[in-house]
């Protein structure tokens, strides 16, 4: 049973982790995009529609990534080219995304979905327990792990990653050093959008292979909170996403266990557990003021216009 529960947790946590990783890169570049929920739902509808039309969930994944990425360009144009306020633009992007996806998806409501099938990795999947949990998963799960490793390497081990962090910490100095701040931020925003789109694709192709309006149901907001929770570190995003997912699934099992034992606990209290747990863990890990400050991108949310 433990194995089955773990598989459920992985499915529930993967979209949170992927969307949060994308947002992490955008925020490391100094851009606060609160439109994750909107980009995620756009990714979900694009992925579902493309999978339906082509018959292939892989085309669906691609469409989700492209859909989320293109949608984020709208945010990029407003906040980077026209230096509009990032917080408000992000929220407006969510409103627009929820409306637009509902409109686009109208024709696809109620169609049976196409589920992305797992890719069983030979040999590795034979390992007891871990083989089935970690090496018999779908492509998007593998991508989520690759993204954690890749982004961690990129941000902290590569030249371009260093530039991204420099831009996020002090865009004026970065510009003075000859780094193309706006260009890099466009790429970071689009990467964030693409990740949110991929997370959306996971919703409509893996988690619950179907399309219904508003199916992201607030997961974009949780992803945003996870970036803060992780103090802008990729590995902590992974940990935070899985913590949140695990407590969420755990509370459902706790309900059944309580029934078996005859204990009365209001289900609302159990439902509130993931949120409370996130706060408590953050309190425990954020007591060290210095490490938090080091990781927080100092230019986050601030507009930048190059001097000419």
């Amino acid at each position, binding site marked *: 049973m433990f194995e089955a529960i773990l598989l459920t947790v992985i499915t529930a946590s993967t979209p949170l982790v992927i969307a949060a990783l994308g947002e992490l890169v955008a925020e490391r570049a100094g851009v606060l995009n609160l439109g994750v929920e909107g980009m995620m739902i756009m990714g979900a509808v694009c992925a579902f529609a493309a999978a339906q039309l082509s018959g292939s969930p892989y085309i669906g994944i691609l469409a989700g990534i492209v859909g989320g990425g293109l949608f984020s360009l709208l945010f990029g144009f407003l906040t980077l080219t026209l230096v509009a306020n990032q917080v408000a633009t992000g929220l407006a992007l969510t409103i627009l995304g929820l409306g637009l996806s509902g409109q686009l998806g109208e024709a696809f409501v109620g169609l049976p979905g196409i589920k992305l099938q797992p890719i069983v990795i030979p040999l590795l999947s034979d390992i007891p327990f871990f083989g089935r949990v970690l090496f018999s998963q779908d492509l998007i799960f593998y991508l989520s792990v690759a993204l954690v490793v890749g982004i961690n390497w990129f941000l902290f081990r590569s030249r371009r990653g260093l530039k991204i962090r420099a831009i996020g910490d002090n865009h004026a100095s970065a510009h003075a050093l000859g780094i193309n701040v706006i260009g890099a931020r466009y790429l970071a925003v689009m990467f964030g959008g693409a990740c949110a789109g991929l997370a959306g694709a996971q919703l409509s192709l893996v988690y619950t292979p179907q399309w219904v309006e508003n199916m992201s149901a607030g997961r974009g907001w949780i992803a945003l909170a996870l970036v803060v929770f992780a103090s802008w570190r990729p590995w902590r995003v992974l940990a935070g996403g899985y913590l949140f997912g695990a407590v969420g699934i755990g509370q459902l099992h706790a309900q*059944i266990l309580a029934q078996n034992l*005859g204990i009365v606990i209001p*289900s609302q209290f159990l439902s509130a557990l993931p949120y409370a747990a996130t706060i408590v863990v953050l309190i425990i890990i954020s007591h060290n003021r210095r490490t938090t400050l080091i990781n927080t991108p100092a230019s986050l949310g601030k507009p930048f216009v190059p001097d000419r």
Partner: protein
Amino acid sequence: MKKLIIALAASAALLGGFVTGAEAQEKTKVCFIYVGSRTDGGWTQAHEIGRQELQKALDAKIETPFLENVPEGPDAERAIERMARSGCALVFTTSFGFMDATIKVAQKFPDVKFEHATGFKAAPNVATYNSRFYEGRYIQGQIAAKMSKKGVAGYIASFPIPEVVMGINAFELGAKSVNPDFKLKVVWANTWFDPGKEADAAKALIDQGVDILTQHTDTTAPMQVAAERGILAFGQASDMIAAGPKTQLTAIVDTWGAYYIKRTQALLDGTWKSEQIWDGLKDGILTMAPYTNMPDDVKAMAEETEAKIKSGELHPFTGPINRQDGTPWLAAGEKPQDGVLLGMNFYVEGVDDKLPQ
């Protein structure tokens, strides 16, 4: 900005008056207000299908505008008032949470008729209507008891309101009529609509050993999970067979259309009056989706029960029934008042969940 708006208002008022004037027509307006999206695949979609049937049936005489995704807070009152003002002769408010707003607006517009779904407050121009969903749940319970190998079913519930509690009880009573030891596990999703969470709840129940699933939430996600895990399940609100061709045993399908046609016709005939209607299987306000994925004897049993409920021979809540703690609730042969059912906040014997009081 103000000046421009006024200027625009003046010029547009002329144009607008012209345009709407040209479109004016004699059709009676029958309006609908939905709490969710009309394509939610569940509760609201069932009402939307009913509205479409109504429009089709009386197309020459009526039009049926609607508002969707109206939250159950202060927005509801405004939305309903807007309908009354825009010339709706009859307004169907299709969610419990619209109850007080409906009553308030109805007081202001005595000439407009209102019908509120699933509530208990009425007025001379406010009727209420509801469906005896529990009749379908009872049949489901019987089927579950026949089909389950482990004798345990899982129930994905939304919120602890009487409607849901009544459904859980009816399911358990049906199951116990076949297998007195049948057990029911309940998981509260605390949402009507979140495909992900509903799927998680379904997986949790299956992992905890149930081999049949029923749901009182709106999306087909639990049905999909059941299909994937190879167990059987029941659909909710609409026929979910597309999500589980080899999984769905039957579904309680909300078929409001006939009711909407009946009431609108009464309005057109001038015979509409405020009633508190609680229709059941026999009236066609709910129907059972085809009995599938079960052997013929189980199907025959289900059909027989359905016929008995329709004829009035069988009432799912017929004593002797004990409460969860074993104390007697109904004596042998006794049937509860409708009011007791509508306010049900306790479980019958056999349900494992505990309701916080």
